[in-house]
């Protein structure tokens, strides 16, 4: 079994006018619960579509569990839950499950039915009559019923109310805990990912800005808060990722691997949200400059 669930090498996709993803190189180790974050239009959906084989790369390559997508259906072991959770509105839930069974060789009907029952959704309910949260639960059951080793979810929580979000995440995490599958979850809402994700892939402007295990990423950065200094910010060997200044105060994110002693600054390890926001601000500043 491959220890790399998803790998991209110099992967790029050019749409008619612009690049949707460019020079994307990353490795997602198996067993991780990874957050794929970035602003809208950064290339998250493009990356997922390339991994499923819905799109073909313009350059570079992508492999899923060691195999490139072939266009002959989803790569082996991958299940994908698309952004709008596309389901046939006129179908009943049981018919949707039958579609899953007909379309997949490794389908686990009992498991899928249990997931529907856990969600308290009737098997004869019409898809079109379900709430957003229920529809997501059905789409999730369809994806999990395939018994995937890698589950990719594109903005699965985007159109849900807070209670439904919690529901969906709880279901997802308990199934992940049981099966040990790898998860790649895209979102632009960071708060809901922080508690569950142990790996981060940050995409901005079609490129990978940051990628790695969350613990290591956080340990590799320092967030400094202090009075705004007179001259230039200078931290010697440490890289300034981004600095935010108000007339009196400065907040600086440093990339550093060793402890730094700076008497004028309050220094602390950033949390995931601070880390991601600093990187996003930094790329926004670069593209504005």
């Amino acid at each position: 079994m491959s220890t790399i669930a998803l790998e991209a090498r110099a992967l790029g996709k050019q749409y008619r006018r612009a690049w949707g993803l460019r020079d994307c190189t990353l490795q997602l180790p198996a067993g991780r619960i990874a957050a794929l974050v970035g602003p809208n239009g950064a290339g998250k959906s493009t990356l997922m579509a390339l991994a499923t084989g819905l799109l073909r790369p313009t350059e570079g390559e992508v492999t899923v569990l060691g195999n490139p997508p072939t266009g002959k259906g989803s790569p082996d072991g991958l299940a994908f839950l698309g952004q709008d959770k596309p389901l046939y509105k006129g179908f009943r839930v049981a018919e949707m499950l039958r579609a899953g069974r007909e379309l997949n060789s490794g389908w686990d009907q009992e498991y899928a039915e249990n997931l529907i029952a856990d969600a308290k959704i009737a098997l004869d309910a019409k898809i079109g009559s379900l709430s957003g949260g229920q529809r997501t639960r059905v789409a999730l059951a369809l994806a999990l019923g395939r018994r995937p080793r890698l589950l990719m979810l594109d903005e699965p929580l985007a159109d849900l109310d807070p209670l439904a979000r919690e529901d969906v995440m709880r279901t997802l995490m308990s199934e992940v805990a049981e099966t040990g599958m790898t998860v790649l979850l895209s979102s632009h809402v960071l708060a809901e990912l922080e508690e569950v994700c142990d790996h981060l892939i940050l995409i901005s402007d079609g490129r990978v800005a940051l990628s790695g295990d969350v613990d290591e990423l956080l340990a590799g950065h320092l967030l400094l808060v202090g009075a705004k200094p007179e001259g230039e910010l200078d931290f010697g060997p440490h890289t300034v990722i981004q600095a935010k200044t108000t007339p009196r105060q400065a907040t600086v994110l440093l990339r550093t691997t060793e402890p730094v002693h700076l008497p004028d600054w309050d220094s602390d390890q950033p949390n995931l949200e601070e880390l991601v926001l600093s990187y996003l601000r930094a790329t926004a500043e670069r593209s504005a400059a």
Partner: protein
Amino acid sequence: MIWLAWRRQRMSVLTALGLGVIAVAGMLALRFVALSYMDEHGIGGCRTAGTGCDFTTMNAFAEAFSNFELPLTLFMFALPPLVGAFTGGPLFAGEIENGTHTFVLTQGVSRARWWAAKIVVGVLPVLTITLLVGLIAFWTMEPLSYVTSSPIRTPGFETQGIVLAAYTVLAFAIGSTAGLLLRNTLGAMVVAIAVYIVLLVAVGSMARPEYAEPVYTVEALAEGENGPQTRADWQLDYGYLDAAGNEIDAEFGPECGAPEQCLRDQGVVAQFRLVQPRDRYWSFQAIESALIAGIAALFIGVGAWAVRRVRN
């Protein structure tokens, strides 16, 4: 996959079946009423006016039934493009509009299988339905051949027999492939109907007269100004000949007097006609069905290529 395709497409198949049933019911009713009328008026079994088939009675029959026959013929003209466009247009475009193609294409089946299953499940029912409707149309309209034009002529040719099915498959093929390319149901249906009409007219006017060498006949003028009108044949051309056998333009005018004398005064001694005879009906039906099926196969082939380019 077949199950899924059927589950998705059964409504359009049932709609096509409904339209077919309406057409057949209308034709059966017309046939029944026409046969009773003919028996009552002593022209039972008559197909043309002549011996035993009184001319005036036959014309009264034609007049009485032409009003019923016309809407039915129009319905039969509309049936192939409507059935084809309404089953073919949404076939892929409907899925792409709702995003459900990203569901199917990220499961464990290939694009080729998805495409083929949808095409087969779409084509077979409409092919069967319209084939039956076309054959029934030929049978029911046969007693009314004095009312309608001959089945080898427009509109009989297009609205009866096996070409009905071929034309329906053509509209289906255009609609389904246009849907893959345009990603839009309404656009696909509009394209299907527009391209269909162009091909229908082009094939009928340019290809059909060429399926076999037309029959050229020359008749002496004495038999009447237009000769014996054989309503059954498809007349491609006619004209007048002088003593040397050359075609000449002859004109009638109010000052000209009796038509026959008028023509003779202009040097006309004979008339010619160029026709496709009535008995070529089934061979023409077979040739045209094969031609249309071939064009439909081209569109299907473009669809097989286009499905590989479908994206999210």
